[in-house]
């Protein structure tokens, strides 16, 4: 042994280390024996009885307010009953239909669909089986925990629309993400049962309203009971939305529609100086609560079915999704384009009415005979003959130019989903030229008074006329006033940290410039003032408050057939005070007849609500000062 060469006990010391190392290993062996052999069964049971489950903690959705801070939409806490596939993976879930239907008072048809769906899902999939569970439901689930471990009670913030049917089209509603949406890349990170905005502001600003969900990682036993919490990440609530809507004006607009003859139509009020929507009513309407609360109950499903199949289409937001011939309201953008295309001038803007026009063998008449009418007079009296001839002068190229100038070939860009683009001569040109070999004059005649090849959305008409009110600024209408800031969640630097969300308002694009001279502008405004003062829109007049307006009576069916269901659409588009506009309002009452008799009084009602808020006195002196 060479070790002896160096120190008499080096060998002993090496051996000591070796023995010590073996003792350590032996200690490990003894401990292993204890854990695996002596207590192996105990730990096996423990392992068997624990599973990790991730429970989502939904973020409270941002509330929605009107411009003055009045609450429009809120969330409250409710309980959902959820069903997890995993505890019943051994059986066909459809076998439990009767149990669930009796215990929770659920519709069998609904359960069949849900359970058939969940049968095909992976083990840990969870679905909401009943929303806004009652105390009885919760008790039933708790009491049957042992028999039906797949059912659980979960806290869920619930969307509430306290105004009911009011403003429903603007607000939209929320609901569970659809299986189809889940397959799209946009919703990649979502799971079945997630709540998203559907329609209206809820959909358009969904991401900001939604916030970020948190989660809890918990250990559950084999019966699904939470025994431990491993990790808890709090959610970040969505940001509160302040809309540009003035609830008082909104309610006034809705009342006017409710009191109209057909109870179908729309009224929109907008600030012409920046595009803020002050009111947007569409009738008939619906109750968004039906979608949120009742989609799992038979009555709720019936109600939703009714909405979807109703011939009057209550789910349609007529303001942005309805397309109607605009009739004579179309004459306002026509007039502006007449000047722009040098077909009429400030000095010489008279065109013959002639009581109508004869093209070939066909005579198209005017409502009267206005002689050699100046533009101002033609607007006041809504002279068709004047515009027939202006339309022919413009031709299809001039009409197309006008369509493009006022943005009728695009959506207005309002911050609501599914806006429809108007249809115009530009849109129909190809089809008409194919049918007749060329664009024929009679099409220009019809188009000049907003008929046949013109189907405009009310929002596009209001926007175009507002550009006259604002002296040539074509703003993008919008409903977002401001999103309020939301504080940070978590600790900075950590993985789950959610930084603060800053407040922000509508990102205004530069308004498009509609060129017109001061004089041209004045002629058109004077014509519109005349219409309200003593022309076609007399029924809109309010003493001491100067409104500039234009009626429209859009033909739905040929003359003689325009009765009952096929009566004309009544339009009235306006702004006020005429010389320093603060508000622009459009009204459309479907199939109600003459615009001056049906739409003008409805719009007048909204102006009255506006004056009641704002006060007439200030207005009076202001209008006087301008004069």
């Amino acid at each position: 042994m060479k070790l002896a060469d160096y120190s008499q006990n080096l060998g002993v010391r090496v051996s000591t280390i070796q023995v010590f190392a073996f003792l350590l290993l032996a200690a490990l062996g003894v401990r292993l024996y204890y854990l695996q052999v002596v207590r192996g069964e105990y730990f096996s049971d423990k392992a068997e009885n624990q599973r990790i489950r991730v429970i989502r903690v939904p973020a409270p959705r941002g509330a929605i307010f009107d411009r003055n801070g009045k609450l429009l939409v809120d969330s409250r806490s409710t309980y959902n009953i959820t069903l997890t596939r995993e505890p019943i993976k051994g059986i066909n879930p459809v076998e439990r239909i009767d149990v669930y239907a009796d215990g929770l008072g659920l519709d069998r048809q609904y359960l069949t669909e849900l359970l058939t769906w969940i049968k095909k899902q992976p083990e840990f999939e969870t679905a909401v089986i009943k929303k806004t569970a009652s105390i009885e439901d919760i008790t039933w689930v708790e009491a049957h925990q042992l028999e039906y471990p797949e059912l659980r009670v979960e806290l869920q913030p619930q969307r509430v629309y306290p105004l009911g049917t009011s403003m429903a089209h603007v607000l939209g509603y929320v609901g569970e993400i659809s299986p189809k949406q889940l397959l799209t890349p946009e919703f990649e990170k979502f799971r079945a049962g997630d709540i998203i905005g559907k329609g209206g502001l809820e959909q358009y600003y969904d991401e900001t309203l939604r916030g970020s969900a948190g989660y809890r990682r918990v250990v559950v036993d084999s019966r699904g009971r939470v025994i431990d919490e491993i990790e808890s990440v709090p959610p970040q609530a969505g940001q509160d939305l302040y809309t540009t809507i003035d609830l008082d004006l909104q309610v006034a607009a809705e009342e006017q529609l409710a009191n109209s003859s057909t109870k179908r139509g729309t009224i929109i009020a907008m600030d012409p100086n920046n595009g803020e929507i002050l009111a947007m009513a569409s009738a008939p309407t619906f109750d968004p609560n039906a979608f949120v609360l009742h989609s799992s109950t038979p009555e709720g499903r019936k109600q939703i079915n009714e909405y979807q199949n109703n011939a009057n289409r209550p789910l349609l937001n007529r303001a942005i999704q309805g397309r109607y011939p605009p009739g004579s309201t179309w004459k306002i953008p026509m007039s502006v384009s007449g000047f722009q295309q040098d077909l009429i001038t400030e000095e010489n803007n008279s065109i013959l009415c002639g009581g109508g026009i004869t093209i070939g063998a066909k005579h198209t008449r005017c409502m009267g005979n206005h002689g050699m009418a100046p533009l101002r007079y033609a607007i006041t009296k809504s002279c068709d003959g004047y515009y027939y001839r202006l339309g022919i002068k413009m031709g299809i190229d001039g009409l197309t130019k006008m369509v493009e100038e006022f943005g009728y070939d695009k959506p207005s860009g309002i911050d609501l989903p599914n806006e429809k683009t108007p249809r115009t001569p530009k849109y129909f040109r190809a089809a008409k030229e194919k049918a007749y070999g060329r664009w024929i004059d009679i099409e220009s005649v019809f188009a000049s008074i907003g008929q046949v090849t013109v189907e405009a959305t009310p929002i596009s008409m209001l926007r175009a006329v507002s550009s006259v009110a604002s002296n040539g600024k074509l703003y993008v209408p919008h409903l977002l006033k401001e999103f309020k800031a939301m504080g940070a969640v978590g600790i900075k630097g950590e993985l789950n940290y959610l930084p603060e969300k800053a407040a922000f308002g509508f990102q205004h694009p530069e308004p498009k410039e509609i060129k017109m001279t001061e004089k041209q502008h004045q002629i058109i405004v004077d014509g519109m003032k005349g219409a309200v003062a003593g022309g076609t829109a007399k029924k809109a007049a309010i003493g001491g408050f100067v409104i500039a307006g234009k009626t429209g009576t859009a033909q739905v069916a040929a003359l003689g057939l325009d009765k009952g269901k096929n009566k004309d659409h009544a339009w009235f588009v306006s702004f006020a005070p005429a010389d320093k506009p603060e508000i622009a309002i459009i009204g459309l009452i479907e199939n109600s007849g003459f615009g001056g008799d049906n739409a003008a009084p409805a719009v007048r009602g909204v102006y009255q609500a506006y004056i009641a808020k704002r006060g007439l006195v200030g207005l009076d002196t202001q209008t006087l000062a301008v004069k």
Partner: protein
Amino acid sequence: MVAINIEKRTFRDFDWLLAILAIGIVCFGVTQIYNAQPEMTTWQKQIGGLFIALIAMLIVSFTDYRRFVDSAPLFYGIGLFLLIIVLIPGIGTKINGQRCWIDLGFIRFQPSEFVKIPVVLMLAKYFGNRKIGVLKFKEIGIGIAILAAPIALILLEPDAGQAITYFPLLIVVLFLSSIKIRWVLLTIVAAIIFTPILFWVGVETGKIKQYQLQRIYVIIDPESADPKGFGYHTIQSMISVGKGGLTGSVGETELSQSSLKFLPEPQTDFIFAVTAENTGFIGCVSLLLAYALLLSRLVAGARESSDRTGVIVIMAITGELAFQIFMNMGMVLGFLPVIGVPLPLMSAGLSAILSTFIAIGFVISVRMRRFVN
């Protein structure tokens, strides 16, 4: 500078048994890494790491260890330099709050794993040539100084787990360098008396932080300690080990503790828990026996060493490996605190496997030169 001179005799003297034993343990480890993370490529990376480590081992074993010992100050200096630059943000990569990695893009390594080797060489250089006789206080002081520099730098990362694995190096070297047995006994007695006193003082003065206290309480009584917090890892680790039973629960990877994410870092620090769950008591004891055989082989090498330097190199490595095995398994088996010490040859990680094989290379190198030329 490294001359590789392979002759027939070298082949005969090469410690095949030791090399094969080490490779065998790594291969067993790879199967357990696969069990821990079947969906990831960790196990493939470990095989790649094994090949790199084998090449390093061959280079070291065919080089005379005395050359390395002669250049020990150089290696020691390089080691300290790496430990310093790893602390610089931008060079050192921070993972889980510890800045202990240098990321070269294609590879990421942990200097604190490698610096053990220069420390061993440095200790061997100093204590290998000392004259016969009782260890002087000055010598002990120099030994402590050699160890203190890297430990201080590693504690700055901070990586207490790695720092702790440096202590056995010095303890073994001092023990072999004829430290008086009465000093050894005195230290042990002092530790037995003062540890509880220091613990009590620490708790009373608040020097021991609440989370550190929790980790200690968990060991004393894991069942009633806070199971969500610090007790969680210990309890889950014990459940995994216990679940393995006598023969293990092979073939149930979908329901295993690690694949259900009950175990933290199942491929590195808790690889033994995975092994225990999958192979049971039989597998674990076999592994313990393999380690015992490996350690015996190392000690045998030390006994045949031609000089004192060789003894010190091998025994320091032996002590360090034994200590790491004990610390890691003790943590997995729930009687030592949860502290980040990898299990040698089993845990996934290139740095760890490479430094262990380099150490084995030294042992083989010493053994091959057992006959004085």
